[in-house]
């Protein structure tokens, strides 16, 4: 049990990292990663929404959607949008400073494909509630890790002399390629098991 759960966690965190191996949530990955602070805060908000989605999807799959699998995509996206709305209202009320910092990126969590991907994969893999939550935490921390790493590199890039042609996105994408390559090294994990 524990070994299966830790497998789910580490393989989602490192080997199948949502951002660097599965190409999910790239909009915020490239859009928000100019500052370290916003990077990890957005990561935390995403992780929170991911975990709540995992719980909601489990409830939906167990009690509602068994009879109508064709409504999955619609049901999931509606639930995700409502969850994000609730989280947004909660943050606005209890953490107004954070709310101002995250600004436009909070509602954008809805269109972060990592969240819907999690909901769909959790369903096709048939994870139970605990496996689903562990999967969500692994995925969320993986996203956060990628955001922090990228933000810390881009903070340095701000003061670097970058050739004009690479200034827009070129260099950032090449850096992402290098990070993704480094993460491929984790694929060897667990091969002795």
């Amino acid at each position, binding site marked *: 049990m524990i070994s*299966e*759960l830790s*497998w*789910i966690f580490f*393989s989602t965190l490192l*080997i*199948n990292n949502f951002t660097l191996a599965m190409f999910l949530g790239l909009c915020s990955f490239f859009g928000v990663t100019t500052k370290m602070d916003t990077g990890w805060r957005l990561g935390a908000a995403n992780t929170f929404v991911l975990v709540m989605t995992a719980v909601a999807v489990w409830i939906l799959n167990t009690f509602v959607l068994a009879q*109508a699998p*064709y*409504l999955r995509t*619609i049901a999931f996206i*509606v639930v995700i949008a409502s969850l994000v709305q609730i989280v947004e209202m909660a943050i606005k009320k209890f953490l107004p400073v954070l709310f101002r910092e995250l600004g436009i990126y909070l509602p954008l969590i809805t269109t972060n494909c990592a969240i819907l991907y999690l909901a769909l994969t959790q369903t096709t*893999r*048939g*994870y139970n509630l605990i*496996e689903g939550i562990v999967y969500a935490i692994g995925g969320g921390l993986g996203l956060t890790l990628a955001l922090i790493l990228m933000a810390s590199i881009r903070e340095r890039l701000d003061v670097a002399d970058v050739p004009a042609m690479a200034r827009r996105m070129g260099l950032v994408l090449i850096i992402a390629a290098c990070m993704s390559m480094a993460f491929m090294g984790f*694929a*060897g*994990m*667990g*091969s002795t098991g």
Partner: protein
Amino acid sequence: MSGHEHSHGAPAAPTPDAGSSTARLLFTLAFFGSLGGGILAYTYQQTLTPIRKFAGEKVEAAVKEVLGGPATIDTLFLVGDKLSQELPAGADVLEATKLFIGFNEAGERIGVAVEEWTPGFAAEVRLMVGFNPTTGALTGFKVLAQTETPGLGDKIAKDTSFASRFMGKIVNPLKGTKNPTTDPSTVQTLTGATISSKAVIKVINKAVETWKPRLEAYEKGGGK
């Protein structure tokens, strides 16, 4: 909500439907929700036949391949923890967990085929595994679905020489090695796809370990 505040705070802004009633908002959402649901239910009905046909054909082809072209195939269903010839009423044949038994022209059993997969591992691999339950020898395997790295891990499905390495190996349980081997229970893994090869070995071991006792219990019970 923000639309309401906006229209009250700045009456000059001519939003076309400032101040729609809550009833109208709910009605719009309910209308589009049920319209979408209705259209999808219809599309689902229309596409169900070809989707199921393809899924059935895929399984049948895989069974034939891993058993080396049997003359006839019997199907047993897993009901609870026991094998049975009949499905409980109302159960879906496609969704049910099944064991296929292949016979040659003389009516002798050449092997059984089952679907097995690795849940939650780094490499998610779904296989059709064929083996001889008497000797434990493999008759073949076919990759049904996998989420492997294209170009490396997906060699387990594309490299035909890999499948042939498993032919006739005795699952006792199966082990992997990087070097060529003649050991009857050891298989040489693919270069550059060691992890995926090991995932295949894991699934095959799991298939034989779970299904052999089930089949033996079924036969002890007189095949009912």
